[in-house]
Every structure is written in structure tokens, then in C-alpha cells.
């Protein structure tokens, strides 16, 4: 038996070593994890609210994030310093869109020519018309492709738009002037018609009309799951002859640089308003669409979605927090005797307070962690179901951090009341409680 020494009168510093608080926190973590392990099902049920809230928050944040990237990559990318004059503004509320469709006259070929001749300084101006792939088809020998986007274009669209020539050539000025029966096709048609043959100089039927393939476009990819490579481009003049004499045009204006683009937009607006006799106080009866205005509108829409999400998440979090508070109050009652023991051994009020606040924070933090995992699974599932061509909804790190910090704070906040109840317990009463 080792000797037991008795220290003589100890010095009595009033405050403890600075490391004391930290040690208590570590002890509290240990207790919290132990409590979680001891009551797995109860903890899980308790945390459901926080889990759902965190999952919702992260899924919506990552969807919006993914769509933002997507919009920036695919839709809003009109090419460098290009804006499009069209019948209406693209990104707007559905009511406004319907109204604009009713009220606004399409941009006609005369207006394109007017702009081409009257705008003072631009790099390029081209026009496109398309069938919007309604009832359109393309055929080669026994193979058919449906819902083909038939586009009539001016020859300079290759310099303005995003398409690039993979082989052959684009539509040329002579094609345009002579209303040639030539076409420039997308990769989907190459895959369907010419998997092992050179497509150049082959004759395909577009809505039953024969066209000679003069060029093939590089693959573009998909937007919202829809292929962007399922198209046939022909000279705008030929398009007018066979598909629509007076098509609604998309006039693509390319400026020299971003700064000049703003002036060019204003000039275009002024010219068109004057030509269309729009009164001073009335809105444009046409749309000028540029990447930045598209993005701006997009952000307004997602902002609204995000606002609603914040509301829902807040409700979930408060409900989840109250459930946590309830279970912590039960836990304090259950562990009154333990609190008595700890107090008899020298735990101060703040030690007990810290223990229970940390326990509820860890509890909620674990809920947040589960929410993150669930969100990961949901986004994986979305990608699996909708396909990788849809927005690559990678979960942003910021969303994970916000989810974890938010859930932990909820636990902290709703743990304060039960913890203060525990801290206030009288050691004698607490020790006397049996459980």
C-alpha cells in the first residue's frame, strides 16, 4: 500500500487556472457524445426538425448555386459583348411575358435592315429565325430525327454566336444571296445520320425539303437536360422562302467592348422606339436581352425562392430547437442526481451550465451534420434521376458551413434555459434525488 500524504494548508487562489474552462468544455463534449450514444433513437427523433431544416437549407442553396453556374454557363452566355433584340424581354414574370407576346410586334426583317444601316458603330450585326422545333423533322435515308431546331441565319452569325465549325464551313454570303439549299448541322444529326460516314455533301431532308450538308458544328451540350445540338442552320433567305416569309427575328448586335455595348444598347433602343413610334412615357414594345440583364432577372427570381426557403428553414429550426429544449429539460430532470454528484465534487454553476449548453449544441450540431449528409444524398439522387446534364448541383462549402453553424447555434440558444435550470439546482436536493 502506497503512502497517503496529507498536504498542509493549501494556498487558496480565488480563481482557477485558465485551462479550467477549456477542460470543462472537453468534459462536456465527452458527456454530450456519451448521452447521444446512450439514447440513439431518442436523440434521432429529437433532432429530426434540425435535420430537415439543415437539409432543406443546403439542398436549396446548392440547387440555386448549381443553377446560377448553369445559367451563367449556358443561357446567359450569348457570346462576348452581344445583345439580342427580340419581340420581348426573355427573363421576366410569366404575366409580363404573356402581355409582351400579345402586345409587342415581332422584330421583322425591315427592322433588322434598319438597325444594320442606321446603328453608327458596331462590330457585327446578324439575325436568326427559328421554328422553335415545332413539328419539325430531318431525314437521311431510313433515319429520322424529330423536333429539330430549324434556324435561318445570316452568314455572320458564326462570328457572333457560340457555335463553332467542326468540319466543312458555315453559311456564306453567296449562300445567303442565292437562297442556296445548303445546311450547317449539329452533332446530334451527325450521330444519327452519319455515325461512320463523312456528312459533308450528303443530302438530307428537312421537313421534306432537300438540303446539302456543307458544315458540321462542334458539340455544345445540354441545357436543363435538353440537347443544344439538335439543329439545322440554313441561310435566312432560304428560310424565308420555305418556312416563313416574315419570321420573327432575333437580331444579334455585337459591340466592340463591354463599355461600348451599353451605348449601343441605348442607341438601338432609341432607334427602334422612334421607328415604332413609342410614346415618351411608355415602355419598350420590344426586348433588348443581354447577359447581365438576364443574370439580374435570374438573381431576382432565385432571391425570392431563397427568401421563402429562409422562412421555412427558420420555422423548422425553431420547432427543432423547442424539441431540443424539451428533451434537455427532461434530461436535466433525469440527471438531477448526477448534477448533485458533480456539484458536490466542486462543479460551479457555470460548469453545469456549460455542460448542458454544450450538450444541446453538440446534439443540434450532430443533427446539422446528419442534415448535411442527407442533403448530399438528395443532391446525388437529383443528379442520378435528372441526369448529369442538369445543373451540376455540387454542394457549396458555404452551404455546409451555414447549415452546421446555424444548427449548432439553435442548440446553443435553446439549451440555455434547461442548462440554467440545471445550474440553479441545490446540491443537497439534487443529491437526495434518486434515479
Amino acid at each position, binding site marked *: *500500500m*502506497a*503512502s*497517503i*500524504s*496529507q*498536504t498542509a*494548508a*493549501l494556498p*487558496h487562489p*480565488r480563481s*482557477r*487556472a*485558465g*485551462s*479550467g*474552462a477549456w*477542460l*470543462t468544455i472537453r*468534459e462536456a463534449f465527452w458527456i454530450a457524445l*456519451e448521452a447521444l450514444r*446512450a439514447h440513439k433513437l431518442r436523440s434521432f427523433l429529437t433532432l429530426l426538425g434540425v435535420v430537415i431544416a439543415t437539409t432543406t437549407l443546403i439542398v436549396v442553396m446548392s440547387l440555386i448555386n448549381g443553377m446560377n453556374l448553369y445559367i451563367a454557363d449556358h443561357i446567359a452566355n450569348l457570346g462576348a459583348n452581344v445583345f439580342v433584340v427580340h419581340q420581348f424581354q426573355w427573363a421576366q414574370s410569366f404575366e409580363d411575358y404573356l402581355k409582351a407576346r400579345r402586345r409587342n410586334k415581332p422584330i421583322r426583317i425591315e427592322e433588322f435592315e434598319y438597325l444594320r444601316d442606321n446603328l453608327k458603330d458596331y462590330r457585327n450585326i446578324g439575325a436568326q429565325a427559328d421554328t422553335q422545333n415545332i413539328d419539325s423533322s430531318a431525314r437521311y435515308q431510313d433515319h429520322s430525327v424529330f423536333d429539330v431546331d430549324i434556324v435561318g441565319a445570316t452568314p455572320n452569325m458564326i462570328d457572333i454566336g457560340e457555335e463553332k465549325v467542326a468540319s466543312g464551313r458555315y453559311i456564306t454570303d453567296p449562300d445567303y444571296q442565292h437562297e442556296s439549299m445548303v445546311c450547317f448541322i449539329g452533332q446530334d444529326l451527325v450521330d444519327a445520320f452519319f455515325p461512320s460516314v463523312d456528312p459533308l455533301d450528303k443530302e438530307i431532308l428537312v421537313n421534306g425539303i432537300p438540303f446539302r450538308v456543307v458544315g458540321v458544328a462542334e458539340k455544345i451540350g445540354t441545357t436543363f437536360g435538353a440537347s443544344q445540338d439538335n439543329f439545322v442552320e440554313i441561310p435566312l433567305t432560304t428560310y424565308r422562302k420555305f418556312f416563313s416569309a416574315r419570321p420573327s427575328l432575333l437580331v444579334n448586335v455585337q459591340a466592340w467592348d463591354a463599355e461600348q455595348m451599353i451605348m449601343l444598347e441605348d442607341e438601338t433602343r432609341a432607334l427602334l422606339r422612334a421607328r415604332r413610334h413609342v410614346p415618351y412615357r411608355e415602355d419598350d414594345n420590344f426586348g433588348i436581352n443581354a447577359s447581365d440583364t438576364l443574370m439580374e432577372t435570374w438573381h431576382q427570381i432565385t432571391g425570392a425562392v431563397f427568401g421563402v426557403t429562409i422562412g421555412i428553414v427558420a420555422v423548422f429550426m425553431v420547432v427543432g430547437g423547442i424539441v431540443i429544449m424539451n428533451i434537455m429539460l427532461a434530461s436535466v430532470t433525469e440527471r438531477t*442526481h*448526477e448534477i*448533485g*454528484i*458533480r*456539484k*458536490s*465534487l*466542486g*462543479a*460551479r*454553476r*457555470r*460548469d453545469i451550465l456549460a455542460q448542458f449548453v454544450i450538450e444541446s449544441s453538440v446534439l443540434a450540431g450532430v443533427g446539422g451534420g446528419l442534415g448535411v449528409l442527407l442533403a448530399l444524398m438528395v443532391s446525388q439522387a437529383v443528379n442520378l434521376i435528372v441526369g448529369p446534364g442538369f445543373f451540376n448541383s455540387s454542394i457549396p462549402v458555404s452551404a455546409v458551413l451555414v447549415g452546421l453553424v446555424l444548427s449548432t447555434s439553435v442548440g446553443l440558444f435553446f439549451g440555455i434555459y434547461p442548462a440554467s435550470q440545471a445550474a440553479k439546482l441545490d*446540491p*443537497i436536493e439534487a*443529491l437526495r434525488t434518486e434515479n
Partner: protein
Amino acid sequence: MPPAGVIIKADDLWKTYDMGAAIQVHALSGVSFSVDRGEYVAIMGPSGSGKSTLMNLIGCLDSPTRGTYWLNGQMVSELSDDELAYIRNKEIGFVFQTFNLLSRASALHNVELPLIYSGMPAKERLERAGEALRKVDLADRMHHKPNELSGGQRQRVAIARALVNNPSIILADEPTGNLDSATGEDIMELFARLHEVGNTILLVTHEHDIAAHAHRIIHVRDGRIERDERISDE
């Protein structure tokens, strides 16, 4: 301030409970006594005598309504909750009838607890807790939980926990009350050994056989000290 050799000095301690309607119950009515360093004292009395109240005061779990109480040179009768917690941590080692161990924690962690609240670094803490368990011959049971230990072993864990902070007094409340008589004797032997090496021990009990192990018996009845007898070493 009491002289240096005096570890406990209680002067006219009163503990009064207001029961409403101007009815007052005096659990203690003017208790005065002192204990020197190294003494082995039993506090005896039947239930309702006020000995539990006295033990709570000595153990700094409670404050007296009136009177002064000095513990190891400090007046502790007028301290706040947290200051009392600090005194309990530094000066007092509790041993309870029902052991009062944390059931989910190992023996080692139970013994470690007072050191956690005194803010000792982990390495030193584990060393000290292990050493305390060795002193009560439980070195081979460190990682067992209380429900894996016998009653006597549990009480020895509790004694190790009481020793680990080198307290001024060990305050044992019916330490053999939940044990069979043979195990109880073992525990009393352990207390005797602890006393031999210089620990001050206060034993609260209602059993004569147990109190007989002490060298001094303070008899409490009706909130007063009835008799304070010294037993010469056999």
C-alpha cells in the same frame, strides 16, 4: 481566526428553516466544536437529530443561518455558491452511503472528476487518479464501470475520488450503510489506514460499531451537541 493546527472551527452554528406562517424549525441550534488536523471524528445521532444538516454545513453544501464556520483557515460560512463549490473541490473529499458514482463513467473517470473541476491538465489528472485508485487497491479495476464492481469496490472508488484532490478533510456519510458487515469492516480498515497516514476524517453514522472506529465521538441530538467523548487508542 483559529490556530494553525485547527482544521474545523464551528462557532454557534444555527440552521433554521422557515415553514411559513411564522413557524420556524431549528435543525441546528447553536453548535460549536473544533477538529484538529489529523483527527478521526465520528458524528453520531439518531435520524432527525440534525447530524445530516451538520454534515451538509461541514461539507460546504449549505450555509448556516447564523454562526461562523472556519475550514482550514478560511471562513466559509458566508461564501457564495460558486465559492463553496471551489472549497468543496479543494478542501473536502466526500464519501457517501450510496457511493454516488457516475454510472456511465469508468472508475478512473469517476476519480478524475474533482481534478477536472479544479482545472488540472489531462496527463497529470490521469496519473493522480490512477495513483488514488492504487491506494485503495483498485489498480486492476480502473476501466470498469460501477455496475461491473462490487459494493465494496464501488465504495473504494468513491474513497479514491475523495482522496484525489488531497483534501483537508474526508467527510464520510454512513460509508458502510449499503454494505454487508464484512465488506463494511474492510472499508473501516481502509479509513483507519488513511487516518494513520495523516488524513483528517469525519464520519457521520448512527451505528455504534462504526463510530467506535473513530478516536472521538460527537453525539448530536435535537440540533445540539449532547456529548463530545474522546476514546483513547486501544
